[in-house]
């Protein structure tokens, strides 16, 4: 083939591989957050509008614990150079503590109150980071956050390592949450979501279960935030906007299928492709659209939520009627029950 024709194809090929690796890494992190929100909202009906707050706490906690001590030009606490996995665990733990603190006064209340409280927490958190001296370098943000398993690959090839790390963590999160929800525990959560009176009459201490779900979800969000920080290498409060960290995740869950863990992952992929893919077609769009593509995609996200809520409220992958993985499937009833049927007859 003519080398002149071949060259641009090669660049495009390398470019699209690089883009795809980066895209999948980002989407993998978002998928963990979507899974966590699915636990809180999809299973339990807990209305968390401050997803980004838990994500941010995880990111900052892990960064501050693993960074080198602050230089004379910087102004942040800790800088303990802890191992990165310890930083991640601490990030998850810190986000769990935040969930506990927010949940204690609000989880007894109706769900709308929690929505307002959580959105407030996210705003307060950004202000605190922005304005507190000696905490997290204020608006300038944290830089030079170390990479995990840096020695495995050099330079640009590290992106493959990062993708691998994210996919492993996503698989871990999925398994943890799937095992937790496809069980009697998940059945109680769904009972609380659909009818709290019934759940209480069935002997369940609903506030405790709701708190467990909220805290576990918060920890997963914190873990995702921690992974995110070490991938970015630099974070600042402005990066953790409500749109990016909360509403995009909500869209992913609604599009993917609230109440279905696989749906949450699929939604992250689909909405992520939509969100991160639109800039790619910018040049091919007519000028009046191309120059506004970033504003338009925000508009389109809102439209997407409404379209799905109206036309396919269950999302792409709908919730399964069978909750606990231990429940025998139809046609494989336990022998005892057949005997019971005969005895129970008139």
């Amino acid at each position: 083939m003519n080398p002149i024709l071949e060259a641009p194809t090669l660049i495009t090929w390398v470019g699209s591989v690089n883009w795809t690796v980066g895209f999948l890494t980002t989407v993998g992190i978002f998928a963990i957050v979507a899974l966590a929100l699915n636990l809180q909202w999809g299973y339990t009906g807990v209305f968390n509008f401050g997803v980004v707050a838990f994500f941010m706490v995880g990111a900052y906690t892990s960064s501050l614990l693993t960074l080198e001590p602050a230089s004379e030009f910087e102004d942040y606490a800790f800088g303990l150079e802890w191992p990165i996995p310890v930083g991640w665990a601490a990030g998850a733990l810190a986000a769990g503590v935040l969930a506990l603190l927010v949940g204690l006064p609000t989880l007894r209340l109706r769900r709308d109150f929690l929505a307002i409280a959580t959105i407030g927490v996210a705003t307060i958190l950004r202000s605190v980071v922005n304005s507190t001296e000696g905490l997290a370098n204020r608006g300038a943000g944290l830089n030079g956050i170390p990479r995990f398993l840096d020695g495995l690959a050099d330079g640009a090839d590290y992106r493959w390592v990062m993708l691998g790390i994210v996919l492993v963590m996503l698989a871990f999160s999925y398994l943890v949450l799937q095992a937790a929800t496809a069980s009697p525990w998940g059945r109680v959560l769904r009972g609380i979501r659909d009818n709290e009176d019934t759940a209480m009459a069935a002997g369940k201490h609903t506030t405790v279960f709701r708190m467990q779900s909220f805290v576990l979800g918060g920890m997963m969000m914190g873990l995702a935030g921690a992974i995110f920080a070490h991938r970015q290498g630099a974070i600042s409060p402005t990066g953790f906007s409500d749109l990016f960290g909360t509403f995009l995740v909500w869209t992913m869950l609604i599009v993917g299928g609230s109440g279905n863990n696989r749906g949450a992952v699929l939604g992250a992929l689909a909405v992520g492709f939509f969100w991160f893919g639109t800039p790619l077609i910018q040049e091919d769009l007519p000028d009046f659209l191309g120059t506004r593509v970033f504003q338009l995609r925000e508009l389109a996200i809102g439209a997407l939520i409404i379209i799905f809520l109206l036309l396919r409220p269950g999302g792409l992958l709908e919730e399964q009627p069978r909750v606990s993985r231990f429940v025998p499937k139809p046609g494989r009833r336990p022998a005892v029950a057949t005997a019971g049927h005969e005895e129970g007859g008139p």
Partner: protein
Amino acid sequence: MTADEAATAPAILRVDQLEKRFGGNRAVDGATFDVARGSITGLIGPNGAGKTTCFNCIAGALRPDGGRVVFDGRDVTGLPPYRVTALGMTRTFQIPQELGAMSVLENLMLAGLDQAGERLWESWFRPWRVAKQERDLAARAHELLALVDLEHLAYELAANLSGGQRKLLELARALMPRPTMVLLDEPSAGVNPTLAVKLADHIRDVRDELGVTFLLIAHDMDVVERLCETVVVMASGRVLTEGTPAEVFANTEVQDAYLGSQYR
């Protein structure tokens, strides 16, 4: 159990001067009555007499403003519903409160008490234990479904059940945790008459075989007459009178308050 035995048996439930106000409305205004252990007791009265509010106060769904509820020798006044259930008293709702997005079978399995799988670490690290308990729960649920003739609908979504079938599911769910006492709020309303008769028989069977005590609100006087040894009549938040169905129906005060002139 005969009516005489029921009258002399020790009370499993004592309701003493129970009060519940909604604003200025005294929905329950000093209701006092006992329910004998092992009895099937009816709670009747005209609409607005405070029967369901009384139930809600006993079961913990509402916190009473005054008075005491003693169940099985324990003061349960103001305890939350899940505590009351754990102590062995379950209830059904007048309007069935099934979980529509779940199968009928899992609606029942949810009601099993003290499940290992409801603890996170056990569902992660001891799945074999959870699996065994789930098999037992499913077997128990199938037995109860057979009892209320819903066995063929075990894997149906509860949302797809008819009104009468939902009533039956309520009853089965109330029996699931092996209670010592069950509060039934209009168990036969909306159930077809043939099934209602069968249901009454089942309730009596459960009482006879397992010794479960029933307190039931009913508007269907045939059901009350067929099933209840003792009847408590409420009007305007108070207990008007108690006695056997025959005594109560013969009481002119009751007839005036509730039954109407057709019984005169």
